[in-house]
C-alpha cells in the first residue's frame, strides 16, 4: 500500500541550536501521533543524530517532518537533506565506529537501528538525503 503524506513541516538546520529545535518538533509530532514514551525517545534520538550529521558533515540543510499513513497505520517520516560533499561509500558510513569527523561514528547506523525504515541516498559532490520512518 502506498504511503500517504498527511502533513509536512520543514525546518532549517544551520546552527547547533537548530538540532534542539528538530528534537522538539519531532517530540511534538510523535506525542501528537500517540507514540509511547520509548518510541518517542527512539525517534527523537535518531533525529538528533541525523540533524547533527546534516550540520557537521553536510554543512547544514533541511529537515522535513511528515506525518504519514499506510492504510490504517500512522507514522512519522523525517527527511534530512543537505547540499554538502556527499558520502563516498554508504556501506562504510553505516559501519559503527567509522567517522570522518570527531564523532563516535554511531550516527547513521544508530539512527537506522532506531527506525523502522531507513533510506540513504548520496552522491559525492551532490549532497546527502536520509529518510527514516517510525510507525506507530
Amino acid at each position, binding site marked *: 500500500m502506498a504511503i500517504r503524506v498527511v502533513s509536512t513541516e520543514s525546518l532549517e538546520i544551520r546552527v*547547533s541550536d537548530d538540532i534542539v529545535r528538530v528534537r522538539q518538533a519531532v517530540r511534538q509530532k510523535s506525542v501528537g501521533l500517540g507514540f509511547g514514551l520509548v518510541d518517542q525517545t527512539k525517534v*527523537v*534520538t535518531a533525529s*538528533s*543524530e541525523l540533524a547533527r550529521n546534516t550540520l557537521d558533515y553536510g554543512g547544514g540543510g533541511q529537515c522535513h517532518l511528515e506525518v504519514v499513513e499506510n492504510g490504517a497505520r500512522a507514522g512519522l517520516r523525517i527527511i534530512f537533506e543537505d547540499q554538502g560533499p556527499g558520502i563516498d561509500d554508504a556501506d562504510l558510513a553505516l559501519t559503527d565506529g567509522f567517522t570522518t569527523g570527531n564523532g*563516535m561514528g554511531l550516527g547513521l547506523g544508530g539512527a537506522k*537501528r*532506531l527506525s523502522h525504515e531507513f533510506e540513504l541516498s548520496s552522491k559525492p559532490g551532490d549532497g546527502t538525503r536520509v529518510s527514516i520512518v517510525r510507525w506507530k
Partner: protein
Amino acid sequence: MERIPILKMGEFLLVTIQVDMHDRLAMTLQDDLTAQIVKHRAHGVLIDISALEIVDSFIGRMLASIASMARLLDAETVVVGMQPAVAITLVELGLPMRGIRTALDVEKGMTTLRAAIQETGQDGDPGRIH
C-alpha cells in the same frame, strides 16, 4: 550566557542537567566542571540526568569525556537518574557507555561514589575540601 549550575554537596559536586542540552552548553559544562573539581578539590561528581529526555551520541560522548577528565583530576563520576526509555534507546543506538558509573538516584549515587573513592585508595574525608 546560559550555564548549567554546579552545586557543592559535602565532599561531592552535583550537576543537575535540566535543560535540553545543546552542543555549546555541553562544552561549557566540561570547562566549568573541571575548574570546580580543582577549586573545591572534589573527589566525586554526581551528574543527575533524570530530566534529560534523550541522550544521543553527542551527549553520551560528553558524559564519557567528563568522567575521563574528572578521573585525571582525581575525581570519580557517577551518572544518576537515567530514564528507562533513555536506557533502552542508548543500547539500540549502540552507545558504549563504558567507563561511566551509573546509579538510580542521587542517594545511591553517593553510596557508589564513596565506594569508588575508597577503591581508588582515597579516604573520602569531607573535611579535606574546606
